């Protein structure tokens, strides 16, 4: 794969979002069409939870 990196702003936004997800249970929002990152939220309605990463566990 010809890896295309995030630019500095995109990277910082994503880091902030990931840490907010881990530390404050903020929701990570995925675009419904192509799963790209579109932002964060405090809560999401039930019908959108399938595109929102909230209480998903991980080992790392």
């Amino acid at each position, binding site marked *: *794969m010809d*890896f*295309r*990196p*995030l630019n500095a702003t*995109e*990277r910082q936004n*994503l*880091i902030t979002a*990931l*840490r907010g*997800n*881990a530390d404050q249970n903020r929701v*990570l929002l*995925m675009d*419904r*069409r*192509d*799963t*790209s*990152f579109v932002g964060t939220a405090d809560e999401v309605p039930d019908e959108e939870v*399938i595109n929102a*990463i909230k209480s*998903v*566990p*991980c*080992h*790392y």
Partner: protein
Amino acid sequence: MSLPTAYCPLRTAMGLLDSETGKRRLLTVEIPVIERYNEGRHPEFQVRVARAGGSLVLRYALKPGHNVYQLETRLVSSYPLVPPETRVITPLKHCPHLLEGQTLCLWRQGSTRANSRWDPARFTCIFAIQAAWRWLACYEIWHETGEWPLPEAK
């Protein structure tokens, strides 16, 4: 609920899980959430289900940043008691939290309910896809910074 044509192969794969409980789980939990996940999604990013030996394999693509990754999540015969196993098909650089065969270290693969972060009562195969998305988002950051952005689980 009728299944879209794309899922017809799944009907023949129901016998992959040995128990009635497993079959019921597929029909009442996993298939409906896969259908919901695929609604309105570009075909390239929809989940496809295939039979592979004694397992069900979900094949899909994720794009947390600018790169598209091909993945597969395997629901083994003892699923959901045993967590799903997810690996990235797209070649990756060697990085933290990546096991043999590019399997993602998500919730202690092969662990039991007692010592796993995976809870079959609460999670579905879509949770595995979401966990993989988050892992890949971390990978994209690690790729540029050399640091995994999330702390180790306690």
